[in-house]
């Protein structure tokens, strides 16, 4: 037993000098190294790259040679005439998602939970998880093929009912609905997994007991099922609130076109067009940093509120 590593016996060993610890566990540090290099090079270096948000960055002058301008880029960003529109579109899409997409997986998993026939339940689950694994490009392709005005099946149905076609794909007043609809179609099924996992932990005997006591379906839902889901719902809500400014640029970028752009320009697409297409690096880096900071503040405050309210939170 004398050879046994003392660090294994207790979580906090009696102060072994780091030099000896390191010698004994040098392979652990060796294993950590590739990942550490990755995090520094590909996660922290871009954060360092945020200095350009405080510069008038020019690719020819580089990070060191570019002029320092303080908060000028941020000021410019807040003062662009585009800012209110970006804010409105981003928040509009996010809030619609919060309203329709957030509850959808919860409702669907509650319905799945009511199904007693396991084969039926599993078959439904098999189907509804599929869209999650399909790329946004394919979802956009399917949407084009189903909704386009010239030969899309949806438009043929609309035309046969109402007599005229609706160009859903290029109308700005339908863009938000289109985006939220796509997300609901793609992610609702997969979103049920986390809630079903929480439900699988509920003791079935509680239901039996409650039923014997004469509880009806709604009472079972209200007093057993929903309390079991509360923690997960709060956790998902925190994540959702934190991502309120992340509208999923891949999806919006794919569905955006010249005709619906007034409703489709969100922070992410704006950063892309101003930064990568137009080459206004510093300006769009400032816009991106503003977005990330707000996101971080919102996650942390949502988490704080959840903890104050007696939930576990995520951090």
């Amino acid at each position, binding site marked *: 037993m004398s050879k046994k590593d003392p660090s*294994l016996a207790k979580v906090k060993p009696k102060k072994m000098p780091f030099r000896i610890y390191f010698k004994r566990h040098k392979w652990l540090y060796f294993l*950590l190294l590739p*990942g550490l290099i*990755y995090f520094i090079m590909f996660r922290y270096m871009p954060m360092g790259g945020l200095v350009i948000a405080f510069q008038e960055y020019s690719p020819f002058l580089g990070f060191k040679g570019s002029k320092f301008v303080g908060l000028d880029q941020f000021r410019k960003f807040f003062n662009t005439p585009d800012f209110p529109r970006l804010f409105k579109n981003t928040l509009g899409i996010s809030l619609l998602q919060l309203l329709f997409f957030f509850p959808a997986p919860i409702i669907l998993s509650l319905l799945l939970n009511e199904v007693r026939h396991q084969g039926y339940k599993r078959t439904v*689950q098999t189907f509804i998880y599929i869209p999650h694994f399909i790329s946004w490009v394919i979802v956009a392709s399917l949407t084009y093929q189903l909704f386009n005005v010239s030969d899309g099946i949806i438009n043929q*149905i609309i035309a046969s009912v109402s007599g005229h076609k609706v160009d859903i794909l290029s109308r700005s007043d339908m863009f938000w609905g289109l985006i939220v609809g796509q997300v609901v179609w793609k992610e609702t099924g997969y979103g049920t997994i986390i809630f079903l996992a929480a439900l699988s932990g509920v003791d*079935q005997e509680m239901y039996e007991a409650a039923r014997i006591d004469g509880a009806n379906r709604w009472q079972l839902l209200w007093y057993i099922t929903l309390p079991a889901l509360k923690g997960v719902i709060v956790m998902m809500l925190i994540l959702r609130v934190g991502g309120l400014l992340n509208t999923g640029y891949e999806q919006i970028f794919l569905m955006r076109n010249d005709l619906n752009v007034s409703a489709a320009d969100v922070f992410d697409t704006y950063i892309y067009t101003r930064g990568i297409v137009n080459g206004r690096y510093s300006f769009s880096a400032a816009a991106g940093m503003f977005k990330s900071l707000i996101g971080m503040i919102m996650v942390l405050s949502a988490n704080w509120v959840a903890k104050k309210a007696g939930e576990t939170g995520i951090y």
Partner: protein
Amino acid sequence: MASTAKIKTGRHRKGVIKRSTGDKVADVIIYVFLALVAISTVLPFIYVIAGSFATEKELTEKAFFIIPEVWSLNAYKYAIKTANIMRGLRNSLIITILGTFLCMVFSLTFAYPLSKPHFRGRNFFLNMVIFTMLFGGGMIPSFIVFTRLYKLYDSWWALILPGLISPFNMIIIKNFFQDVPRELEEAAYVDGANDLHIFSKIYLPLSKPVIASISLFYAVGYWNGYFNAMIYLKTAEKFTIQVQLRSIILLTSSIDETIMDFYDLNGAPPDKAVKMACTVIATLPILIAYPFIQKYFTKGVMVGAVKG
């Protein structure tokens, strides 16, 4: 559980345990609703698959069908010959395999030390990872750093390297390692094994389920990735399947009917069916992998994530 299952089947067959008519009606509504939800998720795929095998005549005449009257492979022949779709498939396959392999190497080795409660510096490194989940450089600084400092512009490495470790996946692996019984490791220590041996000879063989599911996570991510390929790749020969598919759909849908007439005059395969065929080709690898995906995604891993 076995006894409740018996009661359930009995209830289904004979209605032994009395349920109110309201309950029965509710059950029917739930079953029907779920069936509709399930159908609505696969119907678009069925529509596109059916259309891709149909002739242009049938596609223009009929609004909707699940089985084409006349089967035709023209759209596929055309897509494979001209649309660069095979090149895109090959490129995506290389990126996915190479990327997933590297992801697993980096994620497993990084997660292992962090799974040891005694590891000195553990909290520092964990906080370093968690911070990246909260805050990041963002699109533009990343683009500048990767292209200016690392010279990754127009390189597949720009698609592979930035995502080598997903903090979320790494934490799942770490939690899995933590659940491995301590005794195995202690015994190996007594026998004089070092950490590297213990990692490769004890932990890795035990981690097959988590390795399978996390590599599927990564692989699906690489296969489906579009945005990075679009901003970093310039040479058409390097384009991934997603970029390729996007340009095909955009091209044909913006040119619209005029080009359709042109195709017909020249006896070329129908535009609509080609689009559908390309969509099917790009979706196929995911659908083939789906049984595996479902097996590993839904079991264990997500539950572990909830616990973690």
